[in-house]
């Protein structure tokens, strides 16, 4: 009886060691693979909010109680992409408005990860209608600040409610 128990324990031990080895071998062979591809990533750092400095103006300027929208472009290949940014030109949702709204907007480079390679982005930008086009000539990150102002026609007041406007950030491969 005692011998039988010893024999069973020994068999169990061998099986356990065997499975342990197999597990160890499998665990050692788990591959982690990855591919590096050239890409452009658009990151929305801050969505932005409108302040209401007077009855007929909505503005993202800090002085007006708003917050500018900030969008970040990360590129991993130099001189391969354009960044095209368009401030809002209409509300995507709002209460019923009493008059026409006039829109103004600006885009500017707020910060760059490589001051040498990206230092001329703002000076070299191309304005196409409401859209600002930047040629991303260096790899790294660029933060763009988007300001927007909406003014109600005839100095009429914006009705109470929630207003949303959409800015567009586009990354186009050259």
């Amino acid at each position, binding site marked *: 009886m005692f011998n039988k128990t010893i024999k069973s324990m020994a068999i169990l031990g061998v099986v356990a060691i065997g499975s342990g080895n197999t597990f160890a071998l499998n665990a050692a062979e788990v591959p982690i693979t990855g591919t590096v*591809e*050239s*890409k*452009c*990533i*658009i*990151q*929305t*750092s*801050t*969505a*932005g*909010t*409108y302040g209401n400095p007077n009855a007929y103006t909505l503005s*993202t300027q800090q002085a007006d109680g708003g*917050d500018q*929208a900030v*969008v*970040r472009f*990360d590129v991993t*290949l130099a001189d*391969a*992409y354009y960044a095209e940014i368009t401030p*809002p030109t209409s509300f*995507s*949702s709002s209460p019923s408005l009493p008059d026409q709204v006039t829109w103004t907007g600006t885009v500017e480079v707020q*910060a760059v*990860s490589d*001051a040498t390679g990206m230092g001329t982005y703002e000076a070299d930008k191309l304005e196409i209608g409401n859209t600002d086009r930047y040629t991303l000539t260096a790899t790294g*990150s660029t*933060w763009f600040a*988007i300001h*927007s102002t909406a003014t109600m026609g005839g100095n009429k007041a914006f009705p109470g409610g*929630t207003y*949303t*406007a*959409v*800015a*567009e*950030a*586009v*990354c*186009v*491969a*050259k």
Partner: protein
Amino acid sequence: MRLLTYIILGIMLALPVHAHEMVPAYPEMRPAHVDGLLVTTMKMFNKRADVEFYEVGVFDENFQPVPFVTAYNIFKLEYLGNTTFDIYIREQDRNRAAYICSRSKIRKGSSTSTAISSKICSKIIK
């Protein structure tokens, strides 16, 4: 001054961000299993917690739409989700099709501020 720049940059890098990503940047159309069609495979990654839906499209050099077929033009992509999809175009449109673009779709009323619509366009290799 330089130290201040690095500090500001460090703070900005540490801020939470929401990203939209699509690869490859330069897809190549290859013959599909159906005669007269070309296909390419695109991959997307959604790191925008505020966006659940994306729309894809094929455009010419002037960003005019080019006919194409994919499983869903507008599809749901969860936060931190990956998806791979095939884009089919007609062989006769090979020279016309220039860009494959994906655009984030923002739900009406889902934001109380300025929202940012992101769009990434890959250029088709001729």
